[in-house]
């Protein structure tokens, strides 16, 4: 597909006040030029091999497949990338581009902290100043990631406005950028926001899908379906990218069903509850009330707990090319346990939503037909949430012990 699209059907666009318009127009020009510059592309590819650990493996989950008795389940182990998730592909691409543009400072938003950690790491590696905006609520919930970002020399800036979570961190980063864009690049972590971000993030994440395509061909897999979790949607759009313009395989996005269908209990935008809106600079499907105000969302996984979805995925959902399904908190935890026991792999809670959906889909197929799940991140980061959910007493005993000894 085209490197730069701006709109995807009716979704996308650059709906920003004039103060952000100049920086975005500039970024578009540099991005388009860079994507046809072979030196730039080689630098990204080398960085991927040497620092990120690419290509990441494609695992045949033989035990899981046998246990389910349906199609062959494969797992793209994207969580083995340096810093533990796919986020670093985009962080590296944008940071290298920013350096090429002569920028010396990077700002980014983070919710759970994965994008913040990836950005801080890349900035340390590339010698760029780095500030991460993070809601003060999220800082409380994600202390280990704050620690890592600070280890990498980044400044973690608490955001106290609005709901003090991811969307507010985005607002604050946009404000910073509006007055500092001469020396600063705003490194958005998901395939959303005003153009050219959705295009740019997809391109930098498409390495995931390209590796799957190549590996699938090498092993002559009969791929029937590919499954990814969708918060903003950066892992999904990158994983799907080489297949979007084909009619097969089926592409499936798993959204956070949270605790149930009531308002505020989930973050499912594509399965009937989201409405077309314009928020944070782009037109897409969002969860908002009758007056246009963003509503609260919930998911056990912080990375899926966001009221909007990338515009290209919103478009592909309306055309039917990407099917959307909901996975609730309980099902995600169940999938986490299942893959740990059967394959020795700990999914990130976000990716466990894809895991759960993938297990369901696989049951529709037979051996010899492949279903590929993108494990966008590994689950080490979630230990404070998963251990509490799965082994509450022992975990609290440990924490109390640690505190007492500290």
């Amino acid at each position, binding site marked *: 597909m085209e490197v730069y699209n701006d709109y995807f059907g009716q979704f996308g*666009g*650059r*709906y*920003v*006040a*004039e*103060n*952000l*318009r*100049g920086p975005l*127009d500039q970024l578009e020009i540099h991005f388009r030029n860079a994507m046809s510059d072979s030196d730039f592309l080689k630098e990204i590819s080398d960085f991927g091999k040497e620092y990120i650990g690419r290509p990441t493996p494609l695992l045949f989950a033989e035990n899981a497949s046998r246990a389910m008795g349906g199609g062959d389940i494969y797992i793209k182990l994207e969580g083995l990338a340096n810093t533990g998730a796919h986020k670093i592909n985009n962080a590296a691409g944008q940071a290298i581009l920013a350096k090429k543009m002569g920028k010396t400072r990077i700002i980014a938003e983070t919710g759970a902290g994965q994008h913040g950690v990836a950005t801080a790491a890349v900035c340390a590696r590339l010698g760029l100043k780095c500030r991460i905006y993070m809601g003060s609520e999220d800082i409380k919930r994600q202390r280990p990631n704050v620690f890592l970002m600070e280890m990498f020399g980044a400044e973690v800036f608490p955001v106290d*406005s*609005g709901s003090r979570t991811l*969307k*507010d961190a985005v*607002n604050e980063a*946009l*404000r910073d950028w*509006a*007055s500092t864009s001469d020396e600063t690049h705003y490194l958005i972590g998901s395939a959303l926001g005003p153009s050219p971000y959705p295009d740019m993030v997809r391109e930098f994440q498409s390495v995931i899908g390209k590796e799957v395509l190549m590996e699938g061909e090498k092993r002559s897999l009969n791929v029937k379906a590919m499954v990814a979790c969708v918060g903003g949607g950066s892992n999904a759009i990158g994983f799907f990218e080489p297949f979007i313009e084909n009619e097969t395989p089926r592409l499936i996005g798993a959204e956070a069903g949270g605790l149930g269908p009531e308002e505020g209990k989930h973050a499912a935008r594509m399965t009937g509850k989201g*409405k*077309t*809106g*314009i*928020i*944070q*600079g782009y*037109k897409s499907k*969002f969860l*908002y*009330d*009758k*007056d*246009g*105000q*963003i509503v609260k969302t919930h998911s056990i996984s912080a990375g899926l707990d966001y009221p909007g979805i990338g515009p290209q995925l919103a478009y592909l959902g309306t055309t039917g090319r990407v099917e959307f399904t909901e996975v609730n908190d309980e099902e995600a935890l169940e999938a986490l346990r299942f893959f740990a026991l059967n394959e020795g792999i700990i999914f990130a809670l976000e990716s466990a939503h894809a895991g759960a959906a993938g297990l369901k889909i696989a049951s529709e197929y037979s051996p010899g037909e492949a279903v590929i799940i993108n494990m966008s991140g590994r689950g080490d980061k979630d230990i404070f949430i998963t251990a509490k959910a799965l082994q509450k007493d022992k975990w609290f005993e440990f924490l109390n012990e640690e505190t007492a000894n500290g």
Partner: protein
Amino acid sequence: MAKKKLMTHLVAGYPTLEESEKIALAMVSGGSAYLEIQFPFSDPIADGPLIQGACTEAISSGFTQDQGFSLIERLAEKTDVPLFIMTYANLVMAMGIQSFVQRSKDSGAAGLIIPDLPYDYDEGLYKICSEMNMPVIPVLVQGIADDRLDKILKLEPEYIYAAIRKGITGQKSSIDKSTIDFLDKISRSGIKVLAGFGIRERDQVNLLSPHIHSSVIGSALVEIIKNSIESEEDCSENVRKFVLDLSGSC
């Protein structure tokens, strides 16, 4: 000294709906020539933390668009000062552009300021407003590319809102020659320039006024309201005095 034209800003529903009506009328009695009435949105990316804070409070105490329009209606009955509605795209989208413009018109608003619907990503706002005879006020920023500025001037809007500092509302702006040149260029086109972002002192108003139609006072007023609430003083009276002083009406 001659009276200076001011457009003063308030957040509808902040601190309460009733108080915001009193504050609006206090601004008029202090000498405001225009009122910019912001319908609060949960994610106001072109505003600074002060105004966002006021918006968050107004929403959590139950602000609705219906209340916003009824506020405009009541104010339109009580004053002849033009009332501009400022808000963000999603409030307009939620209601539908046509309905939003119609309700603005019915309630007596004199214009719309929607910073995240610029002329080239406007969802048809400019066309609909022109058909319905409702002015849209484009928001420009100092440093805007020349070709964009020219395109906006060609639209021949009645008013242009010019932000004289890059970035977001809430900090004091310094006004130098490049600012004045920028404002003069727009004013020469005959379009009425409303210039704001970081205006909070009489010196700034005096310096700007020969070059523009009206100064815009935003965050400074929200700050006065916030401080008045905290020190349990009369918000409206403090607002009136501040506006009176800036406009030179006293």
